[in-house]
């Protein structure tokens, strides 16, 4: 079936951008490599511009293996915003650590391209392809500082666990194919629903007894595979070392990009595709949400390194988000979309400061942040607002994200998850404000001046404004998220 090529313009532009970055790298002298950052930002902006006319469309691409709908457009917009912000905060780090900038920006672009494919996939094969494109790019990115043992360790861990997860996922997908005889999600849904409904009268006592055991096993494998990608407890073991060892801009990217896309895929696969098996997987995700947020927060409390701390905090944040998947029937989807968007901004805001501070303080240890408020008020306040947002204090966007999650949990009758989320928000204040305490209440130990370079100041100000603006302009954002969260 023919489709207008314009539906794929954003992806085509990004592909071109990646290749162009690799070629331009060869032509540019050592001093003018900064041009690659500008090129990335301009390219991403062009892709975003190509995305604008696609808003509101709902059209299948390539025999339905991909679907361009408001849902996909939303996540593509988030992915491109992430690319722009990460590129903006990367340059100085890349330059200081003598990272090969051509490869760095090209891989970043390809990783984003993978995310964009993932979010519009409606077929197990295309999902897997997008996932691998982004995963392999990020494995390399994590280890791009070849002479740095930490970076190598991070990459190897990430790679080994990641490929194992891919294997598990692929195995689950093959089982699902065995059950349904197709890799096309709507078709799978139809088959499973038929199986569940057809035998409901016969085996009512067994609940989901109508589904073959194979489908259940497949579901579990899928949850496990995706669990690794989104770093839910108990599939999170790779997070702390990878977050700490990877170059900080890459950590920033990992903490939001792949997570957002994997959540999009989860929404497509579970509520969208495996709806028939409802009861089973919502229980699994309720469990994952509960343990992820609780363990993530409790472990974050004791971390001495800010990147590790944010690694665990991102596990906890993911736990919050998963509640939306459990309650997807009660606007949980819209809550997830809103949360992912606002969380990504707040987290990147925090990372902008961490990159800047890390470059100047020469350390990512929490104690190095002592007295930062006197060295750089902008950095300290940006980080404070970002952390206040991550705790869920209004008037920030993440507050409303959390608010929507609370609302969907209460509407869905999951009071215990809401109470757990409330308790966890309070626990998280312990470590987020541990950093704030060091920045504001503890006098500086070393007298290194901290002067933010222009790109990082801009990124800090931009994200700071966005964190607050998303908290005030809730109406249009929420409408967009609700509109986009309608899955066919």
């Amino acid at each position, binding site marked *: 079936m023919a489709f207008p090529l314009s539906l794929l313009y954003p992806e085509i532009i990004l592909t071109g951008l990646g290749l162009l970055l690799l070629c331009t790298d060869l032509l540019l002298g050592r001093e003018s490599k900064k041009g690659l950052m500008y090129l990335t930002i301009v390219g991403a902006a062009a892709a975003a511009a190509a995305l604008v006319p696609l808003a509101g469309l709902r059209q299948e691409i390539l025999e339905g293996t991909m679907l361009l709908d408001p849902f996909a457009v939303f996540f593509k917009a988030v992915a491109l915003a992430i690319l722009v912000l990460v590129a903006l905060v990367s340059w100085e780090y890349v330059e200081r650590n003598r990272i090969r900038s051509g490869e760095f920006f090209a891989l970043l672009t390809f990783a984003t391209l993978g995310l964009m494919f993932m979010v519009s996939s409606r077929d197990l094969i295309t999902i897997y392809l997008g996932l691998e494109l982004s995963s392999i790019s990020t494995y390399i990115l994590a280890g791009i500082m070849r002479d740095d043992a930490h970076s190598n360790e991070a990459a190897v861990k990430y790679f080994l666990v990641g490929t194992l997860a891919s294997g598990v996922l692929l195995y689950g997908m093959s089982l699902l194919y065995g059950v349904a005889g197709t890799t096309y999600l709507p078709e799978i849904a139809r088959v499973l629903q038929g199986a569940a409904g057809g035998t409901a009268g016969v085996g009512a006592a067994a609940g989901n007894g109508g589904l073959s055991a194979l489908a259940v096993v497949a579901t579990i494998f899928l949850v496990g595979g995706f669990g690794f990608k989104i770093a839910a407890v108990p599939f999170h073991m790779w997070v702390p070392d990878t977050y700490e060892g990877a170059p900080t801009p890459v950590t920033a990217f990992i903490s939001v990009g792949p997570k957002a896309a994997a959540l999009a895929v989860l929404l497509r696969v579970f509520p969208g595709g495996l709806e028939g098996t409802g009861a089973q997987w919502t229980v699994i995700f309720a469990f994952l949400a509960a343990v992820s947020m609780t363990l993530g927060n409790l472990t974050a409390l004791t971390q001495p390194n800010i990147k590790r701390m944010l690694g665990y905090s991102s596990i906890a944040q993911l736990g919050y988000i998963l509640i939306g998947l459990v309650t997807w029937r009660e606007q949980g989807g819209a809550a997830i979309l809103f949360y992912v968007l606002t969380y990504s901004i707040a987290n990147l805001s925090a990372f902008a400061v961490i990159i800047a501070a890390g470059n100047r303080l020469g350390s990512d240890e929490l104690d190095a942040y002592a007295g930062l408020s006197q060295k750089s008020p902008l950095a300290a306040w940006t980080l404070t607002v970002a952390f206040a947002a991550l705790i869920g204090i209004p008037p920030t966007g993440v507050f409303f994200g959390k608010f929507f999650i609370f609302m969907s949990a209460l509407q869905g009758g999951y009071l215990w998850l809401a109470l757990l989320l409330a308790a966890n928000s*309070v626990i998280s204040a312990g470590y987020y404000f541990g950093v704030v305490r060091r920045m504001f209440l503890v006098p500086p130990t070393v007298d290194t001046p901290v002067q933010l370079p222009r790109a990082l100041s801009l990124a800090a100000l931009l994200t700071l404004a966005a964190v607050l603006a998303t908290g005030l302009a809730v109406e249009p954002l929420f409408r967009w998220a609700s509109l986009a969260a309608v899955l066919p």
Partner: protein
Amino acid sequence: MQIPFLSLVVFVPLVGAVLALLVPRHQERTIKILAIVFTAIPVLLVAWMLTQYDFGTAGIQFEERYSWVPSLGIGYTLGTDGISFPMLIVTALITLIATIASWNISRRVKDYFALLLLLETGMMGVFTALDYILFYLFFEVVLVPMYFLIGIWGGPRREYAAIKFFIYTLLGSVVMLIGIIALYLNSGEPRTFDMLTLAERGGLSFGLQWWLFLAFFIGFAIKVPVFPFHTWLPDAHVEAPTAISVILAGILLKMGTYGILRINLPTFPEAAQSLAPALAFLGVLSMIYGAFVAMWQKDLKKLVAYSSVSHMGYVILGIAALTPVAINGAIYQMVAHGLITGMLFLLVGMIYDRLHTRQISEMSGLYNTLPKIAVILAFASFASLGLPGLAGFIAEFFVFLGAYPVFQTHVIVGVITVVLTAGYMLWMVQRTLMGKERSQFAGTPDAYGWEVAYLVPLMILILLFGIYPATLMNIMNESVLNLVAKVGGI
């Protein structure tokens, strides 16, 4: 065109905070003057509002209503009535005085005054917001500047006190947030976060009312603080710098009791009736517990801090009685306690600045050493113990009078507190002000003119509210009658 008084009162301080941030760091004098100007404007605005205030109505006045998130029914709704207007007066006045009293702050001046102004925006917002989400927003906005104000400019254990305050209050507010959402989801169509509409609509089952009352009450009880949620208060008070203690005692604690009056009573009337005895019990418990612990204190500031726990217990008892007289007394006590305890903290601060100690045992004979401060401290102590003719007496009298028909035993037990209060206050006066003059304090400067200048208005108000209660009663009575009619009494 109608002047948006309340928006101005709420956001003028915020504008001041932003302007203060734009002034270069070393121009400390400019920043201080700017802060005083921007806290004086709300005082003038509130005074202007008082001239236009309609004393004959129970309804909401100076209402401003705009849509914020229409698809969820969240509005930007501000308004005031007889319950919140007295709080606006206290907030505007106490914040101005606290700002003036902060003149000697010398560390990180810019940050201090910007945060102080931001704090005022939060407090004014809490007392004027009539939408649950807006209310929650301001309730939380208060938290962050307070954390920094205690944590950066506080005493030796400031870090601990600041985070303890933060965690406690955050815990209360997230529980409240769940309550807000549950209320919203169960209140029928069209869904709204409008406080008045939801109170008007009613129709909640008794069981649900009970749980929601509890969810909100936990949030507010921590703020008041009601025994046994009070343990953050002594730490926060003792470590906070003087001006911040004044704001904490004078305004922040009232956010809790105000919340109970504004939300718990009218929105969950049946639960309020059923839980009133428990509430009264907690009130009396706080009164007596606070008084006993205050008596035990060796530190002057801690004594005042625990006296706050005791005095806020009166407010809880008054609210629990659900009679017009008692609730009038409760609001009266909120105002009186704000003025009196604010004054006590100011005086303790002034004494500490001069003697560098707060230990009661280390001072005596202050009547001779610091005569002006001593006289004013004696005045404030008398006001605090409820001397007839001063504001505290009227408040306590109304609370007891109104609560007696309902909670006889509670009142009889509660009256003991009056004796206890007189006991620890007079004992404190005796140990600090009277006795032998200490030679090491000789030559310490007494209160400066500018310090007396901001204490005198407080004294005048305490005297005025003590002699002529109608001034304040006229403002609140109609709204209180309306509230009691809504709840229906016990």
